[in-house]
């Protein structure tokens, strides 16, 4: 079974600084997708960034980028120029690439990010 591990329950970063959230996963599959979701206090789950396993290039969305190391099964999220609005729970998630149960997202336990002035 696939598992996703986030070893940092809480992280803190100063406004305008950079922070990296860690995620590792375990799978025997070669075709899969990885995601970072943000959950602010409003509870809404918001997709931050996604990475297809077959792509070697790391995904980037504005201030958010990932470091995808397929061999090491590592998928970290870097947030640059942190803003107060980035404060939230961040969840790493895995999804298998084929049909059927592929649509299931497997989540890590989350990292709570605090942003300080």
């Amino acid at each position: 079974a696939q598992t996703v591990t986030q070893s940092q329950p809480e992280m803190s970063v100063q406004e305008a600084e950079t922070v990296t959230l860690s995620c590792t996963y375990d799978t025997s599959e070669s075709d899969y997708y990885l995601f970072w979701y943000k959950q602010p206090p409003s509870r809404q789950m918001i997709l931050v960034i996604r990475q297809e396993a077959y792509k070697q290039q790391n995904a980037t969305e504005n201030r958010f980028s990932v470091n995808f190391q397929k061999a090491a099964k590592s998928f970290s999220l870097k947030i640059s120029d942190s803003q107060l609005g980035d404060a939230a729970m961040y969840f790493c998630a895995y999804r298998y690439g084929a049909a059927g149960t592929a649509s299931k997202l497997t989540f890590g336990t989350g990292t709570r990010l605090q942003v300080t002035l």
Partner: protein
Amino acid sequence: DTAVSQTPKYLVTQMGNDKSIKCEQNLGHDTMYWYKQDSKKFLKIMFSYNNKELIINETVPNRFSPKSPDKAHLNLHINSLELGDSAVYFCASSLGVYNEQFFGPGTRLTVL
């Protein structure tokens, strides 16, 4: 212009009661999901429907029964509620099984 909506947003009820949570999406998606987020914020899939067919049914007590009357709706009915059912339940939808899942705002269920 709500994409994925859930009703109610909050539900407080007594042990032993039966309750339903409704989910609707207006995105034209054909795949819908129910996830449960427990008190430690851990999120886990419960069910998924594709074109009204059940495609994922995780190890969930049979007191939980999903119903998909059409592709835009996926309801969750829970019988004989227990204290351990207290959680936030999220509905999500996607176009096909490969694409991004859009989440609803969640329903916080509290069982007293």
